[in-house]
């Protein structure tokens, strides 16, 4: 698929030094449209939607906030910590306003898998289906999210 001018603009904003020092695409040299298409296909293959993934991430964030800055047990399988990080980020897709950077850390005690994400990740996944480029230190892949947060595939329901 050809990349639209809007996506080219977003891709430019994702380069290192524009919104953040590291940018959002890592060592991924593909066009943004190709990054989005591949993750979209992966999400569908897993039997999920971006909305389902984002909802589960929000749920862990909301539970973690109850710890008031300390790690908290969520259910039997999870430990969650939410820490505020100073600063806010603009959306590279050009949405107005700024997104805060609460850092959510989830440990799946059963599998020992850990994952870290922020409000920014939740926004990017929910609104734009964007999980960051391969090689980006802050990429969280759909599979990683599914496995660590134990998100149920629609095939399992």
């Amino acid at each position, binding site marked *: 698929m050809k990349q639209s001018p809007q996506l080219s603009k977003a891709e430019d904003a994702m380069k290192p030094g524009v919104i953040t*020092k590291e940018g959002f695409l890592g060592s991924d040299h593909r066009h943004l449209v190709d990054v989005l298409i591949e993750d979209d296909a992966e999400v569908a293959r897993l039997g999920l939607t971006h909305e389902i993934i984002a909802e589960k991430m929000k749920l862990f964030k909301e539970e973690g906030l109850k710890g008031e*800055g300390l790690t908290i047990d969520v259910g039997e399988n999870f430990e969650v910590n939410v820490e505020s*990080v100073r*600063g806010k980020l603009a959306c590279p897709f050009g949405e107005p306003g700024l997104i805060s950077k609460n850092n959510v850390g989830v440990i799946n005690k059963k599998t020992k898998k850990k994952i870290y994400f922020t409000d920014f990740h939740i926004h990017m996944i929910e609104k734009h289906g964007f999980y960051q480029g391969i090689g980006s230190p802050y990429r969280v892949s759909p599979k990683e999210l599914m496995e660590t947060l134990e998100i149920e595939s629609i095939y399992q329901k």
Partner: protein
Amino acid sequence: MDFQWIELVQSVAVVCGIATVLAIFMVIADATIGNYGKKKLIINNDKEFEVEAGHSVLTTLKEQGIFIPSACGGRGSCGLCKLQVDEGGGDYLPTELPWITEEEQKENIRLCCQLKMKNDLKVTIPEELFNIREYEVKVDKVIDLTHDIKGITFAFQGDDEMDFKAGQFVQLEVPEYDLCEETIYRAYSIASAPSDNKRFDLQIKYVSNGICTTYVHKHMEEGETITMNGPYGDFYLSDTDSELIFMAVGSGMAPIISILLDMAEKGIDRKATFLFGVRTMKDLFIVDELKELEKKLPNFKFVPTISRPDETKQWDGETGRLTEILPKYLKNPEKTEAYLCAGENVINSYKAKLMELGIPEDKIYFDSFG
């Protein structure tokens, strides 16, 4: 065959020629288009500097030895570096507007990391910011306070010294290393008493992928020299007789321990309670020092609180969240001031509970690191 070779060489020569012309054009453009020449920077209608224009106002001021608080190092993501620009600022930039309220726009408040110095500029800078300086300090001591918090003592060199108020913060410059291709600044509260102006302590918690915290935890060594600037901030003890309640979790203790040490040295024995939260016993630190302060300040009580007690270890102290135990320790809300240090969400949670219990909002002071 010969003809094909000649065509190929000609094509390569044409491509090289175009590339050379473009490169020369870019060098000339770089030297001229972005060159705004020298401009005047007038501060408080008093000090006047002739500066090389084209850089951000934040950088230009730093080059003149004037440091404006900024936690993100000028990336426009912390919104701290606000400044009143009286003349020459031009229109607001889209990157400034999300940070500037309508009220601030009426007062010509600008985000000085985003605003470029293109014209002569008149700015107003609060006097206290002129005390902020950049220093080269030696990393004197690094200790593990817990499994994820380090305590670092920095020492000023030569005749350098820094006067600060208990509760203020400094900015550390993180040097270039594998997570950081160019230097950046990060802000941390001072965790020592202001009486020693030749040294200061910080308490830094490791944050996964955090540029500064990774440097501090995995690379910083005793004896190395670090660039920092400060002091900043207005989170310090009021000059009243009100009772005090301090609340913090983890490394949020830093400015509060500084205030308490200062109170002990100055003999300020106001009735004070410090509710300090951690998750487990292994997350507790400097408990002995704080218990020692109870002896120096007879009206001070330290309340370490564990949110997840380990059934195999004895713990006689408080358990639960700080907002849960708060009612037990807040006896005279109308006569109490609260001092909080935590992330933005936690501050909001503490504030809501304090106000519910009767502390007026204007008596709640906080150092939010979110």
